[in-house]
C-alpha cells in the first residue's frame, strides 16, 4: 500500500532540515522497498515543530516533529507499526491545541496543499472569490471589501475599502495594483509563508483587485532576501496565466489583468509604499511626500492600489464568503483575522492566525509557551523593529489596533518578538537608532541626521560618569525622539522613537536612570 507523506518546502522548514529529511526518507524507503509518495506542501506555520512530517490516516493527518535526518528510520518504523509510539509523534496535527484553536482564513490551506498545484488550490476553495467577484461585478465587489472592514495589514491599518473606492472612482488610462511584499520587519514571516505556500491566493486577490478598480496590470514587489517566494510566485504566475486566471480575459470576466514579480535590492525603506513606488519606477527608493496619495497618483503617476500581501490575500475569502462572514471575526474596528508571528526568545515560535481581540498574554504565553530560555519575560516588541517594547503589565491588552494605540503601541504587521529578563533594553534602544540610521533613505533631516545622533546620545548616556550627566543626556534623547516622531517625513523616522521611548519609560534602570528621571 502506498504511504502518503507530507513535508513542507517552506524555506524556514528547509532551513531547519526538511530537505535532509526528505532525502533520508527517499533513501530509507528505497532500502526498505517501501512505496512512498512524498508530497511537498506548504508549512503549517508551527515552526517550532519543523521539520514536521505528516502522514494520512483514516482519522486525519498525524505528525512527527521536529525531525532530523537521523530520526527518519525510527519514524518509518513507527509508521509501519504503532505511530504514536515514536517519541516525536504529535498525534493528529489538526488536533494540536496550537493549531486547533486558531481561526485560519488566510492560512486555511497552510500545510495542507502543495503550493504550485492549481488542483489543490481549487479543491480547497481557490478562485471562489474571483468567481463571485466576476458574478457580482465591480461595484458590489468594492462594496463587499468596504463592508468587510478590512484594514491594511502592512501596519498603517488604513481601511482597504476606502482605497478601493478611491482608485475605482478615479478615471485614468492606466491604473495599477501594487503588492508590497518587501516584508522587512525583523521577526515577521507571514508574507513569505503565504507567497511560498499559497501563491495562488495572492494572485487571486490581486486579480479581484485589478478587475474591480479597473487596473489592468499589477506588480508584486518582493524583497531579494526571499528567493524562494520569488521563484514560487513566478512559476505560479505562469500556471495561473496558462489557466486563464490572468491575461486578456481574467477567469472569463472579459476584463484584462496581468502582473509580474519585481525584486527589491535590499533596502528596508522600500517597504514604505511611496519609496517602493519610486523603486518600482527604477529610481532610488526614497520616500515621497503625501499628498498626492498613491490611490490618486501612484506608480508612474497613475492611480495605484498599494496593499500588503496579507491585505490582498484576505480579499478572496471576503468575496467567497461575503463581507458579513469576515466582519464577524474581530473586535471593534479591527475586523477579520490577523496572522500574528511569534519570534525572538519564544518557546513555540510560529504563525498564529486569530481574530483580533485575543490578548498579548494569550499569544505569548498560551501559544508561545513563554520564553525559549525558560527565564521570565521582560518585554515583547510588537509590530516590527520600530514597535513599542510592551512590558508584561500591558500583556492583557487585546490585540486590536485601537487598544494598542491607547497604550502607545501598534500592531503593525503582526510581528511579536519576545525577550527574557537578560535583554538589556538600553542596548535595544541603541539598536533601534542604529537600525534607523542604516535603513534611512536620507531624505528628511530628523531621520537622516537624528538617527546617527541618537546612537551617539545613547552611547554618551551609558558612558556618563554621574547621575547628573545621565539625566542631561536622557533629556536630549527624549527631545530627539520627539523630533523624530513628529518631524519625520515617513514612519521609519517617526516610529524609530517608539522602541527608544518605551525602553526608557519601562526600563529606566537599564539606562542607569531612576524611574523619575526617565519620566522627565
Amino acid at each position, binding site marked *: 500500500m502506498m504511504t502518503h507523506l507530507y513535508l513542507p518546502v517552506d524555506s524556514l522548514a528547509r532551513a531547519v532540515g526538511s530537505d535532509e529529511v526528505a532525502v533520508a526518507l527517499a533513501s530509507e524507503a528505497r532500502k526498505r522497498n517501501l512505496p512512498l509518495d512524498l508530497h511537498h506542501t506548504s508549512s503549517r506555520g508551527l515552526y517550532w515543530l519543523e521539520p514536521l512530517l505528516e502522514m494520512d490516516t483514516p482519522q486525519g493527518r498525524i505528525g512527527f516533529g521536529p525531525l532530523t535526518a537521523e530520526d527518519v528510520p525510527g519514524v518509518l518504523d513507527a509508521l509501519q507499526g504503532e505511530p504514536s509510539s515514536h517519541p516525536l509523534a504529535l498525534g493528529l496535527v489538526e488536533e494540536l491545541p496550537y493549531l486547533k484553536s486558531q481561526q485560519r482564513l488566510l492560512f486555511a490551506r497552510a500545510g495542507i496543499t502543495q503550493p504550485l498545484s492549481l488542483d489543490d488550490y481549487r479543491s480547497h476553495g481557490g478562485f471562489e472569490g474571483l468567481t463571485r467577484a466576476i458574478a457580482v461585478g465591480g461595484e458590489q465587489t468594492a462594496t463587499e471589501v468596504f463592508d468587510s472592514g478590512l484594514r491594511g495589514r502592512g501596519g498603517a491599518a488604513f481601511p482597504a475599502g476606502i482605497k478601493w473606492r478611491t482608485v475605482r472612482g478615479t478615471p485614468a488610462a492606466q491604473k495599477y495594483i501594487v503588492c508590497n511584499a518587501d516584508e522587512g520587519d525583523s521577526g515577521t514571516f507571514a508574507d513569505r509563508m503565504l507567497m511560498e505556500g499559497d501563491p495562488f491566493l495572492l494572485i487571486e486577490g490581486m486579480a479581484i483587485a485589478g478587475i474591480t478598480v479597473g487596473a489592468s496590470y499589477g506588480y508584486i514587489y518582493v524583497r531579494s532576501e526571499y528567493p524562494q517566494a520569488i521563484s514560487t510566485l513566478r512559476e505560479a504566475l505562469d500556471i495561473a496565466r496558462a489557466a486563464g486566471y490572468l491575461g486578456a480575459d481574467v477567469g472569463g470576466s472579459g476584463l484584462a489583468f496581468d502582473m509580474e514579480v519585481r525584486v527589491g535590492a535590499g533596502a528596508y525603506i522600500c517597504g514604505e509604499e511611496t519609496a517602493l513606488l519610486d523603486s518600482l519606477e527604477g529610481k*532610488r527608493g526614497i520616500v515621497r*511626500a503625501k499628498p498626492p496619495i498613491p490611490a490618486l497618483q501612484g506608480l508612474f503617476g497613475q492611480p495605484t492600489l498599494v496593499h500588503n500581501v496579507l491585505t490582498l490575500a484576505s480579499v478572496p475569502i471576503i468575496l467567497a464568503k461575503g463581507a458579513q462572514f469576515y466582519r464577524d471575526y474581530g473586535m471593534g474596528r479591527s475586523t477579520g483575522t490577523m496572522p500574528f508571528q511569534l519570534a525572538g526568545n519564544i518557546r513555540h515560535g510560529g504563525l498564529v492566525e486569530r481574530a483580533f481581540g485575543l490578548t498579548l498574554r494569550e499569544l505569548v504565553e498560551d501559544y508561545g509557551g513563554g520564553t525559549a530560555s525558560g527565564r521570565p519575560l521582560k518585554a515583547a516588541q510588537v509590530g516590527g523593529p520600530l514597535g513599542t517594547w510592551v512590558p508584561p503589565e500591558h500583556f492583557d491588552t487585546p490585540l486590536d489596533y485601537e487598544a494598542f494605540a491607547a497604550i502607545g503601541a501598534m500592531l503593525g504587521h503582526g510581528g511579536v518578538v519576545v525577550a527574557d529578563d537578560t535583554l538589556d533594553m538600553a542596548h535595544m534602544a541603541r539598536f533601534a537608532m542604529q537600525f534607523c540610521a542604516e535603513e534611512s533613505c536620507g531624505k528628511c533631516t530628523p531621520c*537622516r541626521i537624528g538617527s546617527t*545622533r541618537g546612537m551617539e546620545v545613547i552611547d554618551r548616556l551609558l558612558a556618563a560618569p554621574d547621575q547628573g550627566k545621565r539625566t542631561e543626556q536622557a533629556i536630549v534623547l527624549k527631545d530627539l525622539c*520627539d523630533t523624530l516622531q513628529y518631524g519625520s517625513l515617513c514612519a521609519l523616522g517617526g516610529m524609530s522613537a517608539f522602541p527608544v521611548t518605551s525602553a526608557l519609560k519601562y526600563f529606566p534602570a537599564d539606562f542607569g536612570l531612576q524611574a523619575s528621571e526617565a519620566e522627565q
Partner: protein
Amino acid sequence: MITIFDPKTDIDLGTPARESQVQITLNIDGRSITVPEGTSVMRAAALMGTTIPKLCATDSLEAFGSCRMCLVEIDGMRGYPASCTTPVSEGMSVHTQTPKLATLRRNVMELYISDHPLDCLTCSANGNCELQTVAGQVGLREVRYGYEGENHLADVKDTSNPYFDYDPSKCIVCNRCVRACEETQGTFALTVSGRGFESRISAAGGDNFLDSECVSCGACVQACPTATLMEKSVVQMGQPERSVITTCAYCGVGCSFRAEMKGDQLVRMVPDKNGHANHGHSCVKGRFAWGYATHPDRITKPMIRKHISDPWQEVSWDEAVTYAASEFRRLQQQYGRDSIGGITSSRCTNEETYLVQKLVRTAFGNNNVDTCARVCHSPTGYGLKQTLGESAGTQSFDSVMQADVILVMGANPSDAHPVFGSQLKRRLREGARLIVIDPRRIDLVDSVHARAELHLALRPGTNVAMLNALAHVIVTEGLLDQAFIDERCETVDFARWSTFVSQPENAPEVLGLICGVPAEDIRAAARLYATGGNAAIYYGLGVTEHSQGSTSVMGIANLAMATGNIGREGVGVNPLRGQNNVQGSCDMGSFPHELPGYRHISNEVVRAQFERRGTSPCNRTRACASRTCSNRRWRAVSRACTARAKTSPRATRTPST
C-alpha cells in the same frame, strides 16, 4: 534702459504657482486668504506676507518635503504637516507659530548644525545663506549634540568646474540642486549617492563635476541655499552689494539676468526669476561666460587710422567722432551719396538700433542700412510676412507648455537656445510628442527622459520637398482644419496651394526619395502634427540659411494654417533667432526697405509721416539706379520669393498671439 533690481519682486514663495478656476479661502494665523486650488499652504502664507521657515523649498521647484522646517499645525489634521507639500483646502485653519512648532523647528535646525562647519564668518555665503537665515529665525542657541559626533566636515571640496565649487561639508542634502538639474535644466546629471547619513550630492558620469554629464548651466548653484555650490567669483570676491537687471545677449532666448555688482565690478550673473523668457534659468553662456566684459582684448577707447596699413591710434572721443563724420562726408562727395551705409546689430537695444537707421536715413541720406538678421532670419521676416501678415514668431516661449506635439526643424535648441531647450524638454517629460526634422542627430532626438517619436533625418537642402510632402499627406488624407481655413485663410490661394501639394509628384513616396527619408515616416509625422492636439513648430537656421529659406518658412506657415495650428496658446510657428533682439532690430527699421514698424519705404504717405517727425528717408522708391543701393537689391529678392510663394494660403487676419 537700466533697471535696478528690486528685492521686493524676488520673494521666494516656496512652491510654484498653481492655476485654477477654483479659488480656495483658508485661514492662516487668524487671517483669511484666497488662492487658486492646488496652491501649497506655504505659498498661501507667503502671499499674505507670512514667512514659514524653509530650506528645501523654493518656488522654482516642485515641493519636496525633506527639510521639515516648514511644519505647521492645521486644525483637524493629525501631526505637523509640511506646509510645502500640503495643498490648501476650503476653510482650512493653519497655525504657523506655536510653542510645539518652535521646539520642533529649533530641534531640527540643531541636527543640521551638528553636521555643519561653524565657519560662518569666513564662509563665501556669509550674509546670503538660507541656513544662516533660518537658524536665526528659529532661534537656535546651542547644539546639545556637540561637534564630536559623526560628520562630513572633512569632506573634500570639488573645485574641478571652472565656474563653481562643490563643498560637500556644507551640504544640507536639501536636493534642490538635484531637482533643479532634473526639473529646470532637464540634464539629470546630479543625484544623491549613499543613503541615510552618508547621503551626498554626486555628479553622474564622472569622478567630479567637470568630468560628469553636467553642462554648467548653473541651475544647481542658483538653487543651493548654502555655500555648498558656489560661484568661484563669489568665493574670490565676496558677496555682491547691488544688482542691475539686464538681458543676455548670447542667443535669441533673451534671458533676463541680474548683473550682481560690487562697485563697478561684476561679481556674478544671476538669472532673473522674473524674466519672462527664462524664469530664473540660465545656460553656461549667460551665467558664466561673461569674462569678455572686462577682457583685455576688448577695445574700450576710440581709435582711428587713415589707411589699412597704418597702426591704430588712440584718440579722444571728440576727435574720433569728428574724424569719422568728416570722412563720411568726404566719401560721399567723392563717390556719391550711396557710397556709405550702416549695419545694426541684433545684440543692441531697440533705441540703439533705431538711432543707427535714423542716422543712415537722415544724415547719410540713403537707405543703406541693414542688420545682422539679414544673414540668419530675413527669410523668416519675408516668409512670415507673406503668409501670416506679420514677420514675427507667434508664440511666447511659455506657450510651449501647452503644446501636445512639437515639431523642431533645422534647429538644435539644447545647444543653441539651451534655456528654451530645457523648457521644451520639460514639456516633453510632461508627455508632449516630438518630431525632429534635421539631418543631425541632435540632442533632443534621444535625450534623458525626452526623445523624438520621429526623427526625419533629411538630406541637407531638401526642406521644401519635405514640407511639401508633409502638406501632401495632410491634404490628401483629409487632415485639414477646414473650419479654420474657411474662416482665416484666403480661399483662392488655399485652393491653389492644396491643388499643388496634392499632385502625385509631391507624395512622400516620391519626395521621400529626394529627402532620403522613408515615406512612412513622413506620413506618420504629418498625421501626428495634424491630429496630435496642439502642435507648435520651432525652426532655426537649418531652415532659413538656405537658398530656399523663404520658401521653407512659407511652407512651415502653410502647414500651421492648413491644420489650424496657429493663433492660440500651445500652437504656432516660431523662428529660433540668433540674438537677443532680432525682433527689435527688425521692428526698429533696420532693413533698407522698411521704416520703423515695417512700414514700406515706397509708401508716400508713410514717408511723409516720417519726414514730419524728422526721419527723412531716401526718396528713391523704385528700383534704385545705384548698383550698390540696397533698395534695388531688395526688389530683386522680393520678386523671386513672391514667385515661389504663389501657392501660399495667405492668412487674412493676424493671429491673436
